[in-house]
């Protein structure tokens, strides 16, 4: 069974009165704090970024995170297929919960981005996301963006570089709660190898750190917990005022 070390951090920025990001780790939904290095074998790890008005974003991300937590808690997938099915189920549950919430309060928009990683017994893992929260992987010195941004920039721009047309506004085309025709998650699969480092983060982190710097930092000797702090500090130093949430994972032998 694949073992890995994970650390995480989430903290509010100055854009919102409360942290509208949520962190799912070990079945717990967190809205504040740092989780230190800890060895794990299984589980679902994800970040959520609420999208709404008037503080309802926090509720949306919480509901989405809780739905994922409930759907993936005490669940061990033998294969990647089973795992993907479970994630889709989690996505549907989150979708329903967020939609119900939006309907209850008459909100025109209430949704949550999500990005995460879930490990199966066979050493494979599912990378899932919706919206602009991301999953990165550093393997053999190469940084890869494993998630797919559901934004016009990503859709219209070329792969591997940002869309340069200034007329494009940053918006999210897919998120949990947007009711996009029953599709609310992008799921990819990968295989975990010792030494791989994964970064799962909301746009409060990577929105302000360029890829080269991100690669450099992930390739450092810092522990996962140290990286959490360093990446957070880097993002803030670069001017990020959004809520920031990140999980750093290092695959062990």
């Amino acid at each position, binding site marked *: 069974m694949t073992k890995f070390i994970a650390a995480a951090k989430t903290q509010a920025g100055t854009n919102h009165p409360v942290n509208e990001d949520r962190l799912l780790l070990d079945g717990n939904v967190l809205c504040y704090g740092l989780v230190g290095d800890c060895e794990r074998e299984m589980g679902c790890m994800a970040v959520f970024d609420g999208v709404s008005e008037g503080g309802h974003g926090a509720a949306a991300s919480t509901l989405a995170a809780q739905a994922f937590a409930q759907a993936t808690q005490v669940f061990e997938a033998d294969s990647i297929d089973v795992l993907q099915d479970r994630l889709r189920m989690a996505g549907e549950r989150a979708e329903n919960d967020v939609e119900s919430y939006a309907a209850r309060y008459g909100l025109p*928009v209430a949704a949550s981005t999500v990005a995460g990683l879930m490990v199966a017994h066979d050493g494979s893992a599912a990378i899932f996301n919706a919206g602009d929260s991301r999953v990165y992987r550093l393997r053999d010195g190469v940084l890869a963006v494993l998630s797919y941004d559901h934004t016009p920039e990503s*859709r219209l721009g*070329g*792969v*591997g570089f940002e869309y340069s047309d200034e007329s494009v*506004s940053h918006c999210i085309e897919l998120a949990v709660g947007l009711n996009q025709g029953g599709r609310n998650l992008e799921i*990819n699969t990968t295989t975990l190898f010792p030494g791989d480092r994964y970064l799962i983060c909301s746009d409060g982190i990577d929105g302000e750190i360029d890829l080269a710097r991100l690669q450099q930092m992930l390739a450092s000797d810092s522990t996962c917990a140290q990286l959490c702090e360093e990446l957070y500090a880097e993002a803030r130093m670069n001017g990020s005022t959004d809520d920031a949430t990140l999980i750093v994972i290092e695959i062990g032998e």
Partner: protein
Amino acid sequence: MSDETITVHRDGGTGNDETVTVRRGDLPVNGETVTVYHGNQASVPGETVTVRRGAAPVSGETVTIRRGDAPSAGETVTVGRLVPRANGETVTVSHPVSATGGETVTVASPMAAPAVGETVTVSRPVTSVAGETVTVPRSAASGGQTITVPRGAVANPDGETVTVSRGDVRAASSVPASPFVPEDVTITSHDGQQFIVHLGQVVGHGGQSTVFAAERVDDGLACVAKVFRPLIEKDRTEYEKTVRAVMSLNGRPVSETHLLPIFAYLHQGLSATEVGAIAPQLWDIAITPKATCLSDRPRSKHMVKSRVIPELSQAINLLHTEFGIVHRDVKPSNVYLYDKQIALGDYGSARSLSGIDNRTTKTETRSNGYTPGHGRMVDPRNDWYSFGYTIWTLYEGNVHPLYERLKDDTFFEFQDAGQPAEFTHPDDATLGNLLQGLTFELANKRFGYEEIKDWIADPDHFYRQLPIFDFKSDHAPYEFVGRLYTDPVSLARGLASHWDEAKQRMQQWQLERQMRKWNENDLETKIHQITEAKAKGGEKPNYDFNLACVIYEMSGGKIISWRGEDVSLGAGKNDLPARIANMANAEIDRYAVKSGLDGTESMGVLPSGFLSYVLSRQGEHDDSVATIAENIKAIEDLAVASDGPHFAACLLKGFLTFDELETHAAAQQEIRRLIGNPRAFFATCSTSRAVDEFFLLFAGDVSMDAIIKARGDAQSRGSIDVDVVLDFMDRVADNKAPVRAFYRKYGNMAGWIWLSEHTALYEALPGSAGESAIVNLRGLSPSAQASVASLMQAGSNIRIEGSKLRADMEVTPVPYVNGWQTRDVLLTRPLTLNALFCAEARGETVPRGYVAELLAGGADEQLLDGIGIRLLAHANLTPSASYSQFLEDERNDADGALEGAIQRDTQDYSMTEGIADTAARIEAVKKEQSRVLRWTCVVAVIYFVAILCARGSFGQFIVMCGTLAPLAVLFLVAAFVGIFGFLALNLLRSFSAVDRVQSLDSDLAANADLLESRLVQLVDFDGRTGATVEKLLMVGVDEDLPMTQGTDFSFGSEGKAFYADPEVMDRLGRLAIRLLLITSAVISASGFMGTVFIDGDVIAKIEVVSAIAVDALICIYVLGDDEHPGSAASILSWSWIWLGPLVIAFLLWGVVSVLQAFGMVGAIIAVVFLIGCFIK
């Protein structure tokens, strides 16, 4: 029934029981919408709105009922139909607000029972109740409100759904309940105008707002108030820009601007209490005049063309050009008829082109049918796209041209495909041309205001070439190393040219992402699978291999590149076969080089398995590549498994450059050469390199599997196994007989095969293991035509039986071969020396005859020694150091059991030692015999002459001859008996070798190391008699053993005692010879005494006494411990002692006697010579 009217407007208030009837007599056009407009007045309880139609509806026709006001509690809306429903027809009643409780919606079919087979379903958002009445809960405070849709007299069956469908995808126009506590609120605009907002009269919903009825206080102008949550600062800034722009036009007539005026916008300017809330909140509010929405009912095509197109386009252009504002929400429901002018309204989504903040709009839902795929972009060109579909929808009678796709939520896919919708009205083809150009997906090629103006100027002749949607070039080209790529094939070519950079892109998942952008979904999946695939053995991905596969897939199999080098296996001049043919062998090694994961060395194409991947993919469509694929796969596996790359690379070269005729001829020639020259064959088999070169000759001519397997098997033990090479030769040679004959002489099993063909050299007791082995060996003897493989197999079996035979022989090996029987029963015996297992062939002890035959057949010792075939008894071939190594090997073969190995060797060597040592002893004894005989004769004659001399006269000699002749004869007989006694003793001593071996056996358990040392010494042939060994080597094949039972040196049955206890017998023999000596001495002395007795003189007496004394000394000496009693040397030493009396005699009788003695010498010499000749 009137057939004239299809729409009823109700502008005034209505009382209870008022009925509004719509009748029409014409046949409705398919898709036409019939709208019942219910004014702006609140309905009263019990009010009934009835729609009747005079004609049968066409199947698929849509009947739409819209209401502009909020229904009151208890209000009933009835939809009546005059004709039976067509089978499959659907009537949909949409209810735009969330129903929560108490509301009743009744669906009735007024005219006819459902036709047979007709499906009529009653759907609603809550659990259905059987029967005609459906109660839909709603959140509005007007509990108990009922909306009834009658359907005639026939009761609806259970589960029936009656659906009223609408022409666009917006929520139904039924009036929703107010989200606020109903009250009238007065607000004042910045310019001082006052408005009364009726929060109880909801007239509609915007995207993020609710629209209420309002009126301007000054003139009572009917207005609408759009109430929404307070905008955040950034959004408000944007909205205020638009508001200011539009309000700046308030002084201009609508006929000029065609923009719906905004009377007021107040940030947090309205205090209202949400239903269920305990306190009021502040809301943003915008007030515009009440206007008729064009989407509320169909407009004539003429109106659309003559009014809507020019006026609406003018409004949009005005926003763009004068204010730099993009509306971003142009659609039928935002186009109004106000003041008899077409006016564009609803600016909630508008954005200014200046100072765009890209992050202000956080979310975007799917297209509503009027925005392009990236419609939320602040791009003025997108407004023309929206304009196009808006016009198209209005032209189609408020039915979106892609209504079905919108309903199925597949509009996005349609947009992604980039093709225009079909315009189905040939009468207005120019309009269709315009609309298709306006709704082109890509903004840069889309029609715009210029084309619209052109169409307006000449609608009958307008035509523009429609843009062509080239998805890949128009949509997201891929930038790679300074170039933009627009299709997978050209990108694949670019990737192959910049390998390392391409690997990075692949690792970053960029390539599969780009395939997604290019809508190459299968490629995307394939590339992802390749990119994430584990390497063989579960290691990390082999990025080179993955990229090569990705490039191959992206190029559709056109580009077969490995690290930028074309490795296509085709027949082109630039393909790999043509290039590799001209490469030096050292140069091609790179194709088979393995590299570590650290990337310090570039992996070659062979160990990567890429060629097999390509061939397997090609094999999916072409069966002819199967053989090539198998061979390449075999070479690749070899490259992975080999320590070095050279052989695999050479195989690849050989395979790719194979020429059927030349290769085959060269290979067969080499087989003939090697078989005809054993020295060359074994030289080839002496090094891996040489044997590799041999195997490479067959690349292409023989399957790669066969070559690789033979090569692997041949080298599996660290040295070259000639059997495998010969087996390979046998399989591939055109003429197999020479190969098989060669094997019978030089193969590893040749010695054993020889044994099976020479079983006549052994005899065994019936019932013994040896007999069984001999029988089996005869059965196992391979036929003359047996293949090498058969010979190998047979040899293996023969070896088992041969080992049994040998073991049976070795029960009592040494005494038997030495010619003596033992007390043990002899089970199996060799009949000739060649039957003995005293030769070695490649580490195995085999019958001597096999090697002897090779030597007799012309093989020289140097060749045999070089290939591990030798006679163990050969001094020159078995030095001590070799034997030490031999022991070591044996020890290894015996799994480290030193004792077992040594015991085995002891048996082997005891046999050869016995043979050699015994033969040597026999030779020695023969020589000893001769020497003893000669010296005994000499001593006897001297003794006799001495007596004569002592007597001092020739006459006395004559007397003595007459008197002592019998004694002399007796003496001679005794002497000869003694000689044979000496011989017996010497034979006994020949057992010493046996003794040593036996002692070694007994020492095994005690001290193995010491024993090993002694064994080494034992086989140190330097101390041996070379002649013995030479004789062994000279013995012919058919020569009998020299020491078999029954020879002159056999002691018959008595000999058993000697072997049983040779030491005792040695002592007995020593005693016997001493007795013989004493006897002879006594007899001699008696002779002296006799002569003394005859003569009786004093001198003679003295002489006798002296002689007796000397004899006594001799006896004493002989009785002493003589290590070699009876030997010639011993006798010789005695002879000097015997000279003592002779010297005394000379001293006593003086010179005269000496002279007399000399006179006798000649006669004595003659006698001795004669005797010696006789003996010899």
